[in-house]
């Protein structure tokens, strides 16, 4: 309530400093890269692109969970930034408010980009957001432990489970993942749901139930810690880096902290139910969008965005940030130069947008799914029952 009151006050206060108070050569940009490293890298690409057109960038950034509340607040006050980078499953939600402009009017198109990320950036058939880079999940394994046990990195669910069983010993768990009660928890489970042929549209059918049985079984059998329900993906990195987990499910952003920790690791694509099924991972990463401001500001923002999507800038930013370039051609070259990123590049090709099935409804359904995962792992609800409840939420979502 207090936060709500505060938010409303900020809204009223925000009215005084609107679009008009910005100098003409300044592009206001908003993103959620709050870590010093990521912020600096992003800033340098932004600055380089702005300089080319004699512009300056005023960068704002907020923690990821506060980005959407801020965007909605700014939308109320009509003081949205000129250039906005949001997590791709949120793009449709922002587009639904009517605050974004179509990218085709600036000559930007999704040609040559991975279809999954174009889908994530589109709402009702129109393109509103494009990303310089995308990311996905893969399986990280501790090479030292695998070699000592004489194991090969797993390709199927069965192999993953038996490897985890073999490597669980004392305080070391076979595998670590995040099952936290938010988007992160659903996003980690979705590759397993989709690879098993399930869909977010019909969560109570056989395929999703099987996937959740597999997922919660890992905890039930003691192969993963019960604490997974409280871990976000950074906590998972910590467990893996400190040798408390032999495998983990995580994304390419983990690379820099793993290299720092000195753990000897390998990466493979996520295991699937059987070898002939390619993993279907949800696409991660942020898309750039241009809110409705003034024609001049929109034009300037589009120039900066267009420049960031150029081949060289895309390569620069994605190699710094360990993302996969969003253009297929660039990604191929990138994978050849950086073998460690190969599994991620492979997966992005078959990756799909989280919002592909549900559009803006995704947010609510994802919350319901995360709750279902928690109810099965931490509570005593059966996977079927938990998913039936999630499916009911999905049916009522608007």
């Amino acid at each position, binding site marked *: *309530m207090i936060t*709500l009151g505060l938010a409303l006050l900020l809204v009223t206060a925000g009215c005084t400093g609107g679009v008009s108070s910005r100098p003409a050569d300044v592009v206001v940009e908003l993103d959620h890269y709050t870590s010093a490293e990521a912020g600096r890298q992003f800033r340098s690409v932004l600055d380089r692109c702005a300089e080319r057109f004699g512009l300056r960038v005023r960068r704002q950034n907020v923690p990821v969970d506060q980005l959407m*509340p801020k965007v909605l607040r700014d939308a109320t006050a009509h003081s949205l930034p000129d250039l906005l980078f949001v997590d791709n499953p949120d793009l449709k939600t922002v587009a639904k408010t*009517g605050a974004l402009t179509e990218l085709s009017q600036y000559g930007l198109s999704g040609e040559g980009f991975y279809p999954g990320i174009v889908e994530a950036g589109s709402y009702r058939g129109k393109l509103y957001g494009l990303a310089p880079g995308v990311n996905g999940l893969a399986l990280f394994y501790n090479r030292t432990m695998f070699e000592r046990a004489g194991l090969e990195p797993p390709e199927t669910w069965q192999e993953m489970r038996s490897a985890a069983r073999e490597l669980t010993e004392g305080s070391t768990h076979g595998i670590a993942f995040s099952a936290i009660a938010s988007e992160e928890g659903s996003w980690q489970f979705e590759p397993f749901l989709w690879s098993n042929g399930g869909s977010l549209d019909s969560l109570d059918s056989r395929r999703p139930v099987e996937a959740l049985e597999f997922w919660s079984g890992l905890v039930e059998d003691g192969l993963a810690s019960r604490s997974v329900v*409280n871990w976000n993906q950074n906590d998972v990195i910590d467990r893996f880096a400190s040798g408390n987990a032999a495998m983990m499910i995580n994304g390419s952003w983990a690379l820099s902290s793993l290299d720092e920790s000195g753990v000897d690791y390998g990466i493979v694509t996520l295991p699937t139910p059987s070898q002939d099924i390619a993993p279907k991972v949800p696409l991660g990463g942020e898309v750039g969008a241009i809110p409705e401001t003034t024609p001049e500001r929109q034009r300037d923002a589009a120039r900066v965005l267009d420049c960031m999507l150029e081949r060289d800038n895309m390569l620069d930013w994605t190699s710094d940030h360990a993302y996969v370039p969003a253009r297929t051609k660039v990604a191929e070259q990138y994978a050849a130069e950086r073998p460690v990123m190969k599994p991620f590049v492979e997966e992005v090709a078959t990756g799909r947008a989280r919002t592909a099935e549900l559009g803006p409804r995704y947010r609510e359904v994802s919350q319901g799914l995360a709750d279902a995962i*928690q109810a099965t792992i931490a*509570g005593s609800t059966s996977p079927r029952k938990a998913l039936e409840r999630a499916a009911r939420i999905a049916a009522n979502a608007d």
Partner: protein
Amino acid sequence: MTTNTRTTSGTSGPRATRRKPGGNREGLVKWTFVLPMMLFLLLFFCYPVLRNLAMSFQQWTVASFYEGGSPFVGLDNYIALVTDPIFGGAVLNTALFTAGSLSFQFVIGLGLAVFFQRRFPLSGTLRGLMLLPWLLPLVVSGAVFRWIYDEGFGVLNQLLLGLHLISDPIPWLSSTQYALTSAIIANIWVGVPFNLVILHSGLQAVPASLYEAAALDGAGPWQRFRMITLPLLRPVIAIVLMLGLIYTLKVFDMIMILTGGGPANASETLTTWSFALSFEEFDFGQGAAVGNLLIVVALVFALLYLRSIRNTFSSGGERG
């Protein structure tokens, strides 16, 4: 403030009577004292509360923010809340959390207050140290409790295992069975100093002569506590409990940091649910409605509190 006004009007009294047309002047002066406070209350208190009330009767979607359309839907938000499967659990959790925290905070706080009533070497220093939990930012103590509670290497499980009190580590934060209890324990730790300080200062006001007289009459420690300390401390106890209740009802940060209301809504209280509805699901109408329910409950207890201090003051006045 009242004394101030009185002295001001007292000194300017003769002049004020001379200037009859400016008879309102005194009233005006009075108003200037009240006005800043009223403005503050209107702007920072009434407006958000009224706005919150209005929001709870409107349907808010993300589109409402940009285009401004949020149609009036009557009691729909409240009906949706009450029929939500989470609602019952959240109300029960809020009640358990408040009752559990409050009773233990009070009993421990009172025990410590009585203990510190005696003077012994370092008693002042120790009492000062007891304040620490209260001085620490909740984010810090919350983060520390997360470590303490960790199932694998948390110090609490290690301790209990080492003492052979348990044979398997307890999933303090990751099981629906324990999450709420863990949050309550952490909150008790935070709340004890508040109870200690207020009750201790209340004890200072109890005349030592009463205890001496009782001791001469042959009253034991328990009788002295029951027949002297408790009755004389009653007004202070009422205040401590009432304030504690209002504080505890709206505890948000501790639960948010420890469990985020999870796992599977096991520690979801009305505050965390309101936050989730508004800022995670962007259903600001329902979020506001939960907030209003909390305001009503807190208001009832706040009125009780106001009545109790009025009684205290009037009885104190009679005594003086």
